[in-house]
């Protein structure tokens, strides 16, 4: 270990040069560390996104197959009017799928409408007279001025999940509301008609037996302001959307809709398992009648933005590492030139060449240790600045790219409004006129979750990883420069 002592003596004797080496190495290490930190933070953020950002699989009527059937019947019998026949989803199918692994919970959605009786719906310029097609099945339902969204729980409706809709008074619809006439109304409607939690309203069905139902208000919610801007032609105002238990919506639609739903949305606990759930779910249902569509766009948004950050961080690490190796190799080459005399003395004493190389390596390792500690102090700062910059850039681009594609998702309420036939919600829905106002509410997606902050922290593991990188850089530079040592003729010392 004599070369170890020589390395130490050399560094302490030539303080100025050692300080300079430490500064250069610290700068290189700082950038490598910043890259490593961002990469690790992006990893953590992706893992967190997996746990916090929801992904769903939706069971609904297979409209694509239904359209195909309709078209084929059109071509064979040109005389008869084509008819789109879709079947409502059976809840017994839903419970089977709910038992699959990775399915956390499910939410049935039934859309229908009714007329306000004894209170007034909010009227809009586009009014309510457009003939709208019912979504729930073969019978076209007449349109009421109040849009009813029957759900299992409001809390798992995507607009509530993303907080674009919020319960402001009372409570939302829960599983315990099954079989009741409890209702949650929008705050504007409540204000207009001076309604509050505990009051009752009357709704008259537009289809089936056209009965009048007495509803008990259990909660008031506030719809997002942006939802109203997404109104399609012929829809009612968002404020006329009410939430009830799916059982009530089925009752309004008629007795044959008992134990069915327009669609059932399953919350998947691990977004990465979405397609696996879809595959096993398809085995449980009749795929000619029903289809399963997946939506993990929020997760994908976060994942792709974090993947971008990660690959950028990787590039930083490699670029800096390569540049650092070149810079350090040049420094070491110059240093070795300047130290030929010393190398000659050592060679004349009979020191082996590899031990001289080892001495230079040791010197650089000592410099490295100091530099890693210094970089550790500065790394958090640089990493934070760089990470913030990257995340804001990446999420902006990622969000813009997903808003255009995420509309295809059934979104919990949009039953028929969204083209559930396409897979994965990846095809843009275009501006297909939606049957119901609430279909649009449902499809305001969950882009808010895409903004993910990087949590930049310097851990001991980071420093160890940095040290490993530094060692590799030092080793490479010394190897590149050591040609000079290995070639040097010991006789040169004597002759010069």
């Amino acid at each position: 270990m004599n070369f170890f002592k020589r390395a130490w003596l050399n560094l302490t004797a030539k303080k100025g040069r050692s300080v300079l080496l430490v500064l250069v190495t610290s700068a290189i290490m700082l950038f490598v560390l910043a890259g490593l930190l961002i990469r690790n933070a992006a990893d953590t953020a992706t893992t967190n996104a997996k746990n916090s950002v929801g992904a769903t699989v939706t069971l609904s009527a297979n409209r694509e197959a239904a359209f195909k059937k309709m078209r084929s019947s059109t071509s064979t019998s040109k005389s008869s009017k084509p008819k789109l026949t879709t079947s409502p989803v059976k809840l017994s199918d839903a419970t089977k799928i709910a038992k699959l692994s990775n399915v956390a919970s499910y939410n049935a959605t039934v859309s229908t409408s009714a007329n306000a009786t004894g209170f007034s719906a909010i009227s809009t310029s586009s009014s309510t007279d457009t003939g709208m097609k019912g979504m729930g099945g073969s019978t076209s339902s007449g349109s009421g001025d109040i849009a009813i969204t029957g759900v299992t729980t409001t809390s798992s409706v995507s607009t509530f999940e993303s907080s674009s809709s919020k319960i402001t008074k009372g409570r939302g619809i829960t599983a315990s509301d099954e079989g009741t006439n409890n209702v949650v109304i929008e705050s504007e409607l409540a204000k207009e008609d001076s309604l509050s939690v505990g009051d009752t309203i009357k709704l008259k069905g537009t289809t089936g037996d056209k009965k009048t139902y007495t509803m008990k208000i259990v909660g008031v919610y506030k719809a997002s302001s942006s939802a109203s801007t997404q109104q399609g032609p012929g829809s009612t105002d968002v404020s006329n959307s009410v939430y009830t238990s799916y059982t009530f919506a089925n009752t309004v639609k008629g007795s044959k809709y008992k134990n069915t739903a327009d669609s059932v949305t399953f919350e998947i606990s691990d977004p990465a398992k979405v397609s696996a759930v879809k595959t096993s779910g398809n085995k449980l249902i009749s795929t000619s009648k029903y289809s399963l569509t997946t939506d993990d766009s929020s997760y994908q948004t976060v994942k792709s933005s974090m993947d971008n950050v990660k690959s950028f961080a990787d590039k930083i690490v490699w670029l800096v590492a390569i540049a650092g190796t070149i810079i350090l190799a040049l420094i070491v080459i110059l240093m070795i030139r300047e130290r030929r005399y010393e190398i000659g003395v050592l060679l004349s004493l009979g020191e082996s060449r590899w031990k001289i190389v080892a001495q230079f390596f040791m010197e650089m390792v000592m410099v490295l240790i100091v530099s890693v500690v210094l970089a550790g102090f500065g790394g958090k700062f640089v990493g934070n600045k760089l990470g913030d910059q990257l995340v804001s850039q990446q999420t902006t681009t990622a969000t813009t790219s997903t808003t255009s594609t995420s509309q295809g998702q059934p979104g919990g309420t949009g039953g028929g409004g969204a083209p559930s036939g396409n897979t994965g919600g990846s095809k843009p829905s275009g501006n297909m006129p939606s049957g119901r106002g609430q279909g649009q509410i449902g499809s305001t997606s969950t882009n808010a979750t895409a903004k993910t902050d990087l949590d930049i922290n310097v851990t001991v593991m980071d420093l160890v990883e940095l040290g490993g990188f530094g060692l590799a850089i030092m080793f490479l530079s010394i190897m590149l420069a050591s040609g000079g040592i290995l070639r040097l003729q010991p006789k040169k010392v004597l002759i010069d």
Partner: protein
Amino acid sequence: MLKVNDLGYWYDRQENSLFEHVNLEFKSGNSYAIVGQSGSGKTTFLSLLAGLDKPRAGQIEMNGEPINKIGLTNYRKSKVAIVFQSYNLLTYMSPLDNLMTAMAITKSEHRGDKEFAIKMLRQLGLTDDQMKKNVQRLSGGQQQRVAIARTMVCDAKLVVADEPTGNLDEENTKYVIEQFQKIAHEQKKCVIIVTHEPDVAAACDHSYRLEKHQFVEET
């Protein structure tokens, strides 16, 4: 102990060889001077004896074994100690550390023995203060004493020196010559000194002149 057999050397772009068919023998307990005109090839010859270069022709034997068989690095490590005109100390160390380092590299029987190194430095007239400060802050004469002390703490039985007094004043020259004679006569080592100074040559037991590509003993 050191035998030179039919030795020859020339540089690549030289018309004539510096020396050829050289046969010499150097014995332990003796001091030898090698003199000759500047540029005649004395340093080149010494570099071959020191194992710093390979001969073009012939071979060198150390106690009957060819030095290329011992391996030049190995030979330099354990068989020969070299003193240079420009001292060739490790400039970032104190005299004491220079000795300790040389003892460690050459695996001297005294390696790690600080007291022994201090004793040697004292013998060569260095104060305790001088032996602990950086060698570059010593005078040329003091640095050459450190270089000589370095040969004394190592086990090598052959000591070669190239113009060891070239940078020294008269007083230091005299002192250094005395030390080399002591190394030869008291430590029973073989000392070979290249010099152009008649005083130095005269102090040695034998003297060879390199002239017309041959070594001729002077009497």
